[in-house]
């Protein structure tokens, strides 16, 4: 089974070119931080309520990325809010991205393609080798949105992350996205960590808009 960080990265990649279709790397870092917390929550390592996130079980999961942050949370003596942890973990979002991409390569889903620009700077692309996993993720999301099925906890997390990253336009047509917006909202709200990621990103976008407005004046 893929981790949520791996699933989100698959959805942000352009299949053929292997480039990230995701517009904003900063927002991706926050979404990946949320993905890590959601995996830890579904593995019963942490739990949350409306005010805080707390440790339940510090036994390692065996997943390198998850265990790094599980260890950080378990070393903290104080309970912080979920928003605090999303912001804190997002600081090392590039590490999560690199590690998750490496895992996707190891699992044979992506391959690495090095390309030199002007023979000086190396860029790395991740073309998809096997798109079965990505299609499966998209199919799961679509099936759920088009039905009145009660989602599984994993489905809730995925919808919540895809929505936080504004990735629905990549999966749905604009007409479908508009029509299914109430259903997306219904499912998205069911996860408290997902809500925290959305709130942090909303704040970030609003701060950015204010800064741009100030510069404009």
């Amino acid at each position, binding site marked *: 089974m893929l981790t949520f960080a791996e699933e989100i990265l698959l959805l942000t990649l352009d299949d053929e070119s292997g480039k990230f279709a995701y517009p904003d790397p900063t927002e991706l870092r926050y979404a990946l931080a949320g993905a890590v917390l959601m995996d830890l929550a579904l593995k019963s390592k942490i739990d949350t*309520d*409306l005010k805080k996130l707390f440790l339940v079980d510090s036994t390692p999961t065996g997943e390198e990325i998850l265990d790094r942050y599980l260890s950080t949370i378990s070393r903290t003596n104080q309970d912080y809010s979920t928003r605090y942890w999303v912001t804190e973990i997002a600081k090392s979002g590039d590490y999560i991205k690199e590690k998750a991409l490496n895992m996707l390569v190891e699992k044979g889903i992506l391959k690495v393609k090095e390309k030199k620009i002007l023979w000086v700077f190396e860029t790395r692309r991740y073309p998809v080798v096997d798109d079965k996993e990505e299609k499966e993720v998209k199919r799961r999301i679509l099936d759920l949105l088009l039905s009145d099925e*009660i989602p599984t906890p994993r489905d809730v997390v995925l919808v919540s992350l895809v929505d936080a990253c504004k990735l629905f336009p990549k999966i749905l047509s604009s007409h479908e996205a508009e029509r299914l917006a109430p259903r997306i909202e219904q499912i998205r*709200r069911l996860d408290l960590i997902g809500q925290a990621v959305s709130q942090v990103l909303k704040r970030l976008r609003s701060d950015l808009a204010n800064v741009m407005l100030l510069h404009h004046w």
Partner: protein
Amino acid sequence: MNIREHRVGNTVVIVPQGHLDSRSAKDFQEKVLQCIDSGEKSILLDFSMIDYISSAGLRVVLISAKHQKEKNGKLAICSLVGSVKDIFRVSGFDTIVDIYTDQESALKKLG
């Protein structure tokens, strides 16, 4: 976690007590899923004695509601109080599961 259970007509009423969090979620889930798998078509979760619920507790409600719907049965919740009521409202669980103010109105509806 202390979990009481009784029957009113065709409905099984399950009354958990205390905190519904990661420590008690497993016991509660086992109890509800056992009840669903034994073929009970009408189940009411009375949360009047629950004073705290976390994400792990909410996930048990989600899994139970999904399981019961797949078995073509009914599952409802009643008597939410305090912060438990807040968390259900904020997370929009009332759009997934029927929630009633008290046991009497829930039982009337469940039949």
